[in-house]
Every structure is written in C-alpha cells, then in structure tokens.
C-alpha cells in the first residue's frame, strides 16, 4: 500500500485501483484524510480482529520521516485474551476504529462455536465478548474526542478565515 498520496505520485497500478474504491465503513468516525485513504479498498480480514488508527512516523525517502497515521489490525482469532495489548496500543495513541468477526457460542461455523466454548472459563463469559466490551467502551470514549477534534478543526478554519479578512482590511486601510 502506498500511502504517500500527497508527497509522491502513486505509480503502483494496484494502488490506483484501490484508491478509486470507497473507504471501508468503520464503527468509529474517521476524520484523518490519511486514514480515510488507507481505508479505501480495505478488505475485512476473515479472522476476528480489532482495527486501529495509530500515529506513526512514515519514512518518505531521502532519510526523512513525517508524522502520520497507519492502520493496525490486531488478530484476536486464536488468542482473545489480549486486553493488555489493546490497552498498550491505546497508550501509544492508537484509536480503535472497528472490530469484527468475533466468534460466538452460537456461531454458524461449528469449529468457531467450539472455540468459544473452549475459551469460556468458569465465569461463563466469552473472552471475545469481554474484549468487545472493552473496545466498545473505548470507541465511545474516543467518539467524544473526535467530535471535539472536528469542532476544533472547524473553529481553526473559521479563525483562519477571520485572520485573512483582517489582513485584507489592514491592507486596504494602509493604501
């Protein structure tokens, strides 16, 4: 996947085809353009997963890096007890965007249903359900931050507009 859509031309035909597709619809609202680009043509894995948007340093050639965002897919199909890793990623600034394909005790695939029974301990709670609860709660928490961020972007745009108007007025007055 070539994420350098602004700084370098996309020369990979596969990338051109991917970028023409609609972005994958995530549970969380995505406002970063770079992430939206990466979600275009993103194929949902067949395994149980949690999808994150994580801040990262992109190498952009000539020894330079720029801050940006990357998608991280956490595979929880065979190891659902990964709440520790989930929180580790959120501490690194990663934001869960979506989760899916979690096996259920009444799963259509008998092997997956069996897997849930194998992992359900004496508490009777499936670890995938527990993980889903944690992800959902983080999604709700992040939603408020995203709304604030969105509002801030809107206010910044208004401020920039007002500044430009003021500069133009000052210019007119000085003439």
């Amino acid at each position, binding site marked *: *996947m070539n994420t350098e859509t602004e700084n370098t031309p996309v*020369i990979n035909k596969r990338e051109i085809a991917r970028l023409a597709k609609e972005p994958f619809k995530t549970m969380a609202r995505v406002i970063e353009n770079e992430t939206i680009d990466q979600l275009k043509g993103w194929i949902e894995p067949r395994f149980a997963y949690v999808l994150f948007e994580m801040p*990262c*340093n992109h190498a952009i050639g000539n020894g330079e890096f720029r801050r940006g965002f990357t998608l*991280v897919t956490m595979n929880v199909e065979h*190891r659902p007890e990964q709440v520790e890793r989930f929180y580790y990623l959120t501490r*690194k600034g990663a934001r869960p965007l979506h989760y899916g394909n979690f096996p259920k005790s009444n799963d259509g695939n008998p092997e997956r249903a069996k897997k849930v029974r194998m992992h359900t301990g004496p508490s009777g709670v499936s670890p995938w359900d527990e993980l889903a609860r944690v992800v959902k709660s983080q999604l709700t928490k992040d939603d408020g931050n995203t709304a604030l961020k969105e509002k801030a972007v809107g206010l910044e745009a208004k401020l920039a507009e007002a500044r430009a108007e003021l500069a133009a007025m000052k210019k007119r007055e000085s003439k």
Partner: protein
Amino acid sequence: MPVANITELANSNTIGNALSAVASPAFVKGTIAMNHLTAEDLPVQTNVKKFRKNGSLTAATLAEAEAQAVNANGELTDTAATCTAAKAMVVSGLSVEEQKFGTIDLARVGNEQFSAIARFVDDDWLSQFSNLSNVVTSTSVMTIDDIMQGQLGIYNQKTPNQEMPLSIVLGPRAVYNIKKEIIQSGAAAFANTAMLGIFNGANVQPNGFIGSITGVGDVYQTTGFATTGGDDVQAIVHPMWAHCGIFDTAPVSWITNRGAEGFYTEVASYYFWDIAEWNDEAGSALRSDT
C-alpha cells in the same frame, strides 16, 4: 457413537503397499522468533513479568553563584513492558488401532504438537510488527532503500547497541525482490563478492537466515506476517531491544488412556509464553506488496 477427530488407522500410511524410506515433511512455516528478542524464564508464583526500561536524566549549565532546585531534569523515572503468560495447547487422540497397526505413534504426535505450538508462538511475534510506530511503506515491492530507511528509523531513535547487526525479517516475495534488485543494479559495489552476503548463504538456513546486506543487517525469511491493505507487515528490528518475552522451558505433555470414551490415547500438550513490544523505537515496520 464414534469420537470425532481421533487419529485413526485410516489417517496414516499403512503397509498395504511398500512405503518409501523418506516421508515428505509437512509444508508448514519454519520458526525463527527466538533469536530476535530478549527471552527470559517464566516468573514464579505470578503469570506477569515486567521488562524494565531505564529512564535517564538531563544535564544543564548553570551561571556562577546561581541556585538550582530539584527539577524535572533530575527526576529519574523507569518504565516497563508487561508480559502476561498465555497458554498455547494442542490435544490429540490416537486410536489403539493406529498405535498397534499404524505408522503414527505417540512420539510422532508429541513432536508434531510441539512444532504446532512453536509456530503459534512464532506467529505471535510476527503479528506485533504492525504495532511499530516507524513505518516504511514500499511503493510496490520491497527495495534495499526501504530496508535502509527502516534501519535509519531505528538509529534515529538512539537505539543502544548499534554494534549489533539488525534482524531483517522478510517474506519470500520481499527477499526475491531484494535479490533481483541486487542482480539488476549493476552497481560497482555489488560486483564485489563481499557485498553479496545475501547470496553467500544462498540456501535458507533452518532458522530462516539467508545472508547479510552489508552495513544494514542479517536477512531472515519466513511467512505468517500480519497483512494490511494488501501489504505484508514485515520488519527490521534490533534483536535485543525491540521485543521481549517469557517462555516456559519446554512444552508439557500429558498422555492419558481413554477406554470408555472410545479406546484411544489422549496426548495433550501445553506451553506458557508471552511476547511484548519492549521498545517501539528499536524496530521499523516494512510494508510491501503481499
């Protein structure tokens, strides 16, 4: 009612016809993780181990006769990465018929179980590459420049022990493209055999090692990487400081005869381990077309 998933006589090659002296091994991935991370024993009386990360202090200058109170520069804070032991396991049943007349015995089942557990643990390490914050995304296929940018990402972060060769863990397609680039470059440097380390050990070693890219690191080939958006997420990592793990000394096997349940021997193996990202700065993810 028959018990499901028992390894029965029909599962093995029996002597109805003559059998070859050599059996083809299973076509499964090799395991390479253990050489590229810091491994410690499982803790005792707890399943959690913290891998310590030392903090540091900052010095400053001070004018003559000036006082300096204790400040943030002098506050030393250590942090840690946490490993919580998880259990990987395989349970098999071997029918008494298979044991008596077949060619699969309990030792073979045990060995295969241990290999399966090793692959599971290995994949757990590979899956952590996508968590790395330094990301190099190839325009299409992997190039030496991409790997060098990954190396730069690690060195930029002041990763200690830079005298050690970094571990470059790639999939077969990326390795192919690296070899192709070297062959096609025609650069004078690559006319020198000393620069062709990646071809010197041309055959892939059991630990995945295929050779070195001079001045960059040692290249290992494996499969089982996480993927994202059509890319394999491979990595270049510092073998000491990027990842850490706790590992049991060996898998444990239980062998139990089952009569009433269907006359088979149950072989159950389990293994405790965990792998964590110790220092994000000591690795770079390398993404290239799958």
